[in-house]
């Protein structure tokens, strides 16, 4: 079962690398924000998988909870900041 979790984590990292394309080359700033949000929501799952691989779920679940909150606050604050600016989509 540990090997299965390991390969699931590797596949999840591959999907995060795919979302990183949108975060780097996105045509507008808000597209980059979508990519960052997708990577963050995958990271909370990946942290619990890492905890199951290392047999320390009780420690990693707190880190995952803190990361989910941090991701939510970061995306919300960035979107509140960028809505005040004109010419957002023209780069």
């Amino acid at each position, binding site marked *: *079962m540990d090997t*299965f979790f390991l390969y*699931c984590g590797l*596949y*999840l990292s591959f*999907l995060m690398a*795919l*979302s990183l*394309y*949108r975060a780097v080359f996105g*045509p*507008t700033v*808000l*597209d980059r*924000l*979508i*990519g960052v*949000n*997708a990577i963050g*929501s*995958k990271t*909370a*799952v990946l942290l*619990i*998988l890492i905890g*199951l691989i290392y047999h320390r*779920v*009780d420690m990693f*679940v*707190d880190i*995952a*909870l803190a990361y*989910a*909150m941090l*991701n*939510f606050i970061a*995306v*919300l604050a960035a*979107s*509140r900041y*960028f*809505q005040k*600016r*004109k010419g*957002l*989509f023209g780069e």
Partner: protein
Amino acid sequence: MDIVVVFLIIFGLIFFTGGAVGILRFPDFYSRLHPAGKLDTGGGFLIMVALALFNLHHFSLSTLLTSFKIILIVVFVFLSSPTAIHGIVDAGVRAGLGPWTKKND
């Protein structure tokens, strides 16, 4: 029990794959938010429920608390992820970002 866990994780990974492909392939900003908002939330829900079930193999008070915390993360993600996506949509609307139509392709 392991079969249920494996099926839930594989379905969650299918959801995450759809979300990543949708974010890459959709033509404009508003349609990219659709897979980002729904499929990531659904995939995270399925995988985290599977991991909470797997964590209950050795049943004791500490593993019950850990599974409860994982379910707490699921509830928090269900509340926070659509809120964050709605915040991004609101920023796009207020900045004057137009939707994609057939004419300006």
